[in-house]
């Protein structure tokens, strides 16, 4: 089977902690000279080696000798320092400088990276406002299923809240604390005594669950990661149909976050419910069989180790090598037709739940009913004032 197109989606490399927790013994900023949430030297190195691994594995999709040119690859990153830097390091490994490419400086060459500000990014940052999604999330948070999950985690949450000083009012707090402890451990900081009974084993389950939460229901999947899935799928379909797109690359790269990786995997139905490690990587390969059929294979490199082996993931309802037409059918429910207009649809008359739009809808219905009654009442008062004489007069005439 011939590999003819590839999408890569990776998480950035190892970073410093986003924010220390209130009782963190390592909260002194001097311990983190790079600042919060920044890619570390280990993170740079992992992505550099990973880039070289990718370049070797997919050299058949790259220009000869892995020379770089503007059509060799398309890279899209979220607009965050650590993802931009990870992509730069990865590309430095993927396109090592060949003698032909010497430019008189370093054994390195620049490769442009597309990025757009987070507030304009609908595909990769996954933070663009979508009212319909907010409603779906709100509805899920009120559901018995979610409340039950939180209830089962109550004891662990209380223990962690008491010791860390963090407020455990959301599932994602488990991951915040989990990742902070993980990074401190990676930096050889001795973790406090209280962590021993819970980290990492007991915390990894709720931390992993927190990654599944944003894409829990089909509707949430569709509105959260649907555009990314749609983009990848339509790129592959263009390749299959031979439509020459303007750029013509064989490889598209997405440099993003653990949430992006988890949202994507959960949306196509293959998430393992564990926090995606640093520099973990999803590979979506489009292949052409000897019978000229097009199939898609999904691999997941579930490790920070840049030379680690990727696993094949099978999309539910399909085979390992999933025919692209079948994949389109299977993923149809999670692919938005028109994301923007779907985001603006509100269910005004869904009265089963006390979500904010319903409150608004009820208010609107009640107010307009009241106004209608008021108008009717005023009209009838007016008529009763005007008509009686008239009617009386008429009757009078008739009796005569």
């Amino acid at each position: 089977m011939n590999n003819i197109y590839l999408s890569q989606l990776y998480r950035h490399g190892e970073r410093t902690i986003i924010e220390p927790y209130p009782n963190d013994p390592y909260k002194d900023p001097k311990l983190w000279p790079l600042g919060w949430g920044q890619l570390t030297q280990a993170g740079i190195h992992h992505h550099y080696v990973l880039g070289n691994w990718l370049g070797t594995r997919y050299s058949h999709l790259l220009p000869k000798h892995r020379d770089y040119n503007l059509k060799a690859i398309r890279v899209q990153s979220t607009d965050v320092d650590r993802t931009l830097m990870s992509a730069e390091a990865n590309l430095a490994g993927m396109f090592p400088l060949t003698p032909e490419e010497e430019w008189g400086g370093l054994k390195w060459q620049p490769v442009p990276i597309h990025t757009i500000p987070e507030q304009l990014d609908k595909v990769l940052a996954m933070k663009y406002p979508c009212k319909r999604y907010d409603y779906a999330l709100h509805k899920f948070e009120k559901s018995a299923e979610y409340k039950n999950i939180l209830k089962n985690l109550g004891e662990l949450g209380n223990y962690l809240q008491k010791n860390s000083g963090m407020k455990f009012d959301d599932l994602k707090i488990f991951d915040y604390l989990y990742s902070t402890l993980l990074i401190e451990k990676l930096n050889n900081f001795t973790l406090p005594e209280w962590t021993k009974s819970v980290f990492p084993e007991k915390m990894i389950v709720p931390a992993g669950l927190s990654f599944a939460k944003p894409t829990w229901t089909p509707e949430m999947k569709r509105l959260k990661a649907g555009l990314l899935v749609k983009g990848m799928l339509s790129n592959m379909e263009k390749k299959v149909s031979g439509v020459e797109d303007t750029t013509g690359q064989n490889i598209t790269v997405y440099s993003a976050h653990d949430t992006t990786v988890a949202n994507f995997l959960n949306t196509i139905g293959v998430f393992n419910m564990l926090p995606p490690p640093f520099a973990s990587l999803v590979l979506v390969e489009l292949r052409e069989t000897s019978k000229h059929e097009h199939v898609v294979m999904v691999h997941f490199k579930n490790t920070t180790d840049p030379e680690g082996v990727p696993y094949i993931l099978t999309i539910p309802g399909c085979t390992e090598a999933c025919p692209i037409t079948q994949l389109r059918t299977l993923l149809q429910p999670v692919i938005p037709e028109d994301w923007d207009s779907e985001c603006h649809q509100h269910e005004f008359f869904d009265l089963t739940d006390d979500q904010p739009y319903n409150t608004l809808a009820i208010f609107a219905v009640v107010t307009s009913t009241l106004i209608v009654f008021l108008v009717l009442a005023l009209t009838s008062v007016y008529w009763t004032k005007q008509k009686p004489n008239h009617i009386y007069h008429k009757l009078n005439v008739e009796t005569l």
Partner: protein
Amino acid sequence: MWYNRSQSFLLQQCRQRQYTFFTVVGLAVILIAFFITYASFSGSKPLPTLRQINVVFRHGDKTPTYSYPNDPHKDFAWKEGKGALTAKGKFELFALGEIMKSKYGEFLGEVYLPEEIQMKSSYAPRAQMSAMTFLAGLFPPKGFQIWNDNLHWQPIPVNPIPRETDNMLAAKAPCAKYEKEKQRSDATIATNLTKEDNDLLKVLTEKTGDQINNIAKAESLFYTLLIQRDNGLVLPDWTEEMFPTKLARFAALNLASYTMTDTLKKFQAGPLLKEIVKNMQMRDGKRKANFYSGHDLTIVSLMRTLGFEDLNLPSYGAAVVIEYHENEDAPGNGFIQVFYHRQATDQKPNSYQLSFCDPSCPLNVFRENLSKFMPNNWEAECKS
């Protein structure tokens, strides 16, 4: 007696002059020795009052984007593709980064810290790549930031501005008011062209086989010829008459045409100028440098809006540096100095004297004098 006295007076004066002479020479020798020692022991000048730099530069050497129907080289296979940064271009910006390091290294520090440095870029790949090589020259990893002993490079984020929203670097975001004014101003420029100019345009149209009927088309032609010549391609004989001098004038005039009037300046260069002023004004004490990777037009528009209106064709890697200084005893009331690097390898930038300031320019004077070029709300004002 009178004669003798006068003679002895003269003698005395001579002796005095001798003393003075030796003292001066002696002092000079000591001073020179001091400076030589000083210069050889310090890599970069200490700039004790410097608080922030804002640098706007042009990308490096590129391949052409335009070719004309009769172009003998129109099928020339440019290795990097069209409009792409070349190996020479990569080196130019790397060199500019190194020059900036030699001047500002001590101020910027050896360790790259994301919160101290910002790099915005035009979306054009050549501008993004220029930004990356510039940063490679400016911040080779040091100390704990070395992550690979064989590669003295580290990744530093570059923020390209999406083309459709870019009103400061490529400055291609649509602006109705600007476009209307530009049409009007361009018509004036066209009517002011001499008969000679118009005859030249006719010749160009005839020779190239393309409609070279305005200075904008002439600029495209100029750059294509320039790049071809720089890459050792032989230009057709007919170009001898007008290339480079006459065509260069057209090209420079066209670059200037984008900021010919105050209104044009406001909409073309205003957003960038406003951001730079904001950078200097709203300092949180962390941001040390703001870099902007743009085009020849970015440089010309900014310089003209600052008041430097001589026709100019910025070379690859040309850079405008706006330094912000503060004295220890007068925090918050800093002053500005403007420098211009004519080309990437320019070791000694020219200091530019702003017409409304003497000799150093307080930030508030700078802002007040240029406020007419800084739109309050670019988008809204573009529509009105």
